[in-house]
């Protein structure tokens, strides 16, 4: 019997929206291949409608997530790191296939992704201490500025650069939710599997449904929907790498201007971006509003 080969059970990859795992409303999928062109899986082809559904879920989650104490948000982000640590090998395999790199390098990228969750877990209750503070106004007033989350953030996940498929993905999601925003993410079109698997980790990490929503599909469908959506407050264009057309960064930024979304522009050369470089605070501080409170002082 020992020479009977056991057949693997393959996984159907699904979207992650509102804490659930729906297929695309279109019922359509597209083929995802590894770097050598070998078929890996069928990914759901997320549509404009899927995107709008995801925005609804993200909006519904804002109040609860932004209202959670910074300490609790930190605990949840740390929990994500813990859950990810236990599934390191799975993600390493997906990253190796997605980016065409060796197992060792892929594992190192996953380790860094885990550590990046830990880095941002620590920021949740510190960002107000570096981005806010008392202002010494010239009068008998107490004056305090505090950062608040901006709301729903649309993220075009990195589609290029070393480590983009997973470390890059985590690097753009974690800072946005650390401060209390919720996100709708357009995963890298050619390498969506690590992103879709991340949904399984998030679903088991005490993260409320709708805080992170993950869509696979064509950037040209998903990103313009996010850019023009009335109920999206900010846009991270990191993965907008098309030179022209509806998915190009310039078109998305122009579209976002109609609703005065806060926009984080992509790098000048996204393909040259190295996601292993330690992040600063730019992403953390990009999706915040500063609120200043005045109050008189007197007997």
């Amino acid at each position, binding site marked *: 019997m020992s020479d009977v080969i056991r057949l693997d059970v393959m996984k159907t990859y699904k979207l992650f929206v509102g804490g659930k795992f729906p297929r695309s409303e279109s019922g359509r999928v597209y083929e995802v291949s590894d770097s050598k062109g070998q078929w890996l899986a069928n990914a759901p082809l997320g549509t404009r409608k899927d995107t709008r559904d995801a925005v609804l879920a993200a909006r519904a989650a804002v109040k609860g997530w932004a209202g959670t104490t*910074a*300490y609790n948000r*930190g*605990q949840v982000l*740390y929990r994500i790191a813990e859950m990810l640590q236990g599934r390191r090998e799975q993600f390493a395999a997906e990253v190796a296939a997605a980016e065409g790199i060796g197992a060792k390098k892929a594992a190192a990228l996953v380790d860094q992704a885990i*550590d990046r969750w*830990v*880095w941002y*877990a*620590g*920021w*949740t*209750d*510190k960002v107000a*201490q*570096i981005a806010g503070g008392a202002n010494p106004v010239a009068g*008998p007033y*107490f004056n305090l500025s505090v950062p608040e989350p901006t709301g729903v953030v649309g993220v075009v996940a990195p589609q290029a650069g070393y480590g983009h498929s997973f470390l890059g993905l985590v690097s753009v999601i974690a800072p946005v939710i650390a401060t209390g925003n919720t996100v709708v993410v357009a995963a890298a079109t050619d390498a969506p599997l690590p992103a879709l698997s991340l949904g399984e980790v998030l679903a088991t990490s005490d993260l409320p449904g709708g805080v992170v929503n993950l869509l696979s599909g064509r950037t040209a469908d998903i990103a313009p929907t996010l850019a023009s959506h009335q109920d999206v407050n900010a846009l991270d264009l990191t993965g907008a790498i098309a030179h022209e057309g509806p998915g190009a960064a310039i078109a998305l930024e122009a579209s976002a201007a109609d609703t005065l979304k806060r926009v984080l522009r992509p790098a000048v050369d996204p393909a040259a971006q190295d996601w292993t470089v330690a992040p600063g*605070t730019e992403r953390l501080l990009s999706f915040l509003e500063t609120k200043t409170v005045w*109050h*008189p*002082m*007197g*007997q």
Partner: protein
Amino acid sequence: MAKNKKTETGEAPVRSGGLFEYAPAPESPAAAGDIATSYGHFIGGEFVDSSGSEALKTVNPATEQVLAEFAQGTDEDVERAVKAARRAFGDWSALPGSERAKYLYRIARIIQERSRELAVLESIDNGKPIRETRDFDLPTVAAHFFYYAGWADKLDYAGFGRNPQPLGVAAQVIPWNFPLMMLAWKIAPALATGNTVVLKPAETTPLTALRFAEICQQAGLPKGVVNIVTGDGRTGAALTSHPDVNKVAFTGSTNVGRSIARQLAGSRKKLSLELGGKAANIVFDDAPIDQAVEGIVNGIFFNQGHVCCAGSRLLVQESIQDEVLDALKRRMATLRVGDPLDKNTDIGAINSAAQLARITELTAAGEAEGAERWSPSCQLPSTGYWFAPTLFTGVSQAHRVAREEIFGPVLSVLTFRTPNEAVEKANNTPYGLSAGVWTEKGSRILWMANQLKAGVVWANTFNKFDPTSPFGGYKESGYGREGGRHGLEAYLDV
């Protein structure tokens, strides 16, 4: 529907001493885990015997039963611990901050996992109610490690310049009132910033610190990063005066703090002190009385009043004095004093016979000096160290009960007429750790906060603590801050 016999028969609920009869809801002492009959020190990652033979005993203050013996740390023990910390310092401080962070996160997680065990052990060794150790001490301890874990790899952003450096070996001496929490306040920021530590817990409450040593082992913390040496003040003095420590952090009495500061004069050691207090809790006539009364009770009877920032002086506006005192007495009559392991208990045991004697002496002085003493009728257990919640009225600013830190469940009531008078009286103390203000008027809160010479001002609340919030005193309540971004400074060469 559940039946309620008492209402069915129309009988009033049974009361004793003004209290509703509650069925006891004791936590099992067994949940504290195994307590050894005797303990040595934790040095270089291992439990070791003392070089000397002197042993001290720690007792359960609620029963007077000996819980364990532990070593009286000798000069030689301190030497050994400082050496271990010094050896560990190089590698520990050279670790990337992100790796140091992960050790601290591990410690935080293990504390959360073992919080019930630690809460029960703390309650047994200290005498404080299980409800407080369970709902306050332990969650705060874990949160403190979580918070500082996050700073370990973000020191460049903390406002102390690029790449701020640790000091080296930190000598830390902590009190008995919040044994684990004080340990967390000392160890978490020290480790996050890359220092190694030798910590001496108080001689009446060494057990949770020794249990914490096991947690360091479980977390795989490199040997020598945390060392625990037990003993009384002699051990503490040997530690703080050791020539090879770079930092001394002490929480305790103002007199000992003074002597440490004197001892360190002329040295290069950085010093932070968190000392005594005699906080004013100021209630204005527009304050919501019921909430204020809860705040007053929490301010002075939390943790048996063994709190350096306790609101031990109630300053109440003259026009509402009677109303506030009536409500306060009614509320005090419902406080349950007794078995710390009973989940219904509000006030547990006084930590030691010595502390009980001090409280007794000071309250006797209060009476002798002419203040009026009141306590609710309250049955105290026959064994153990207990003190009924006590109120002094007719207190003048010259009375000892208004000037000296009692560190027990004793509240002195003074009055004032104007905000200026309240400020004058509140600041009329050598201490300056905390203060409370109760009023509906926001501008007055902020004005009072501005005028009060105290490191923490609570408005319409009292005794609130958070890892993100700096804590520490003005004047003879010490210097340096613990908690928050500010708490990093005490352990950085900045």
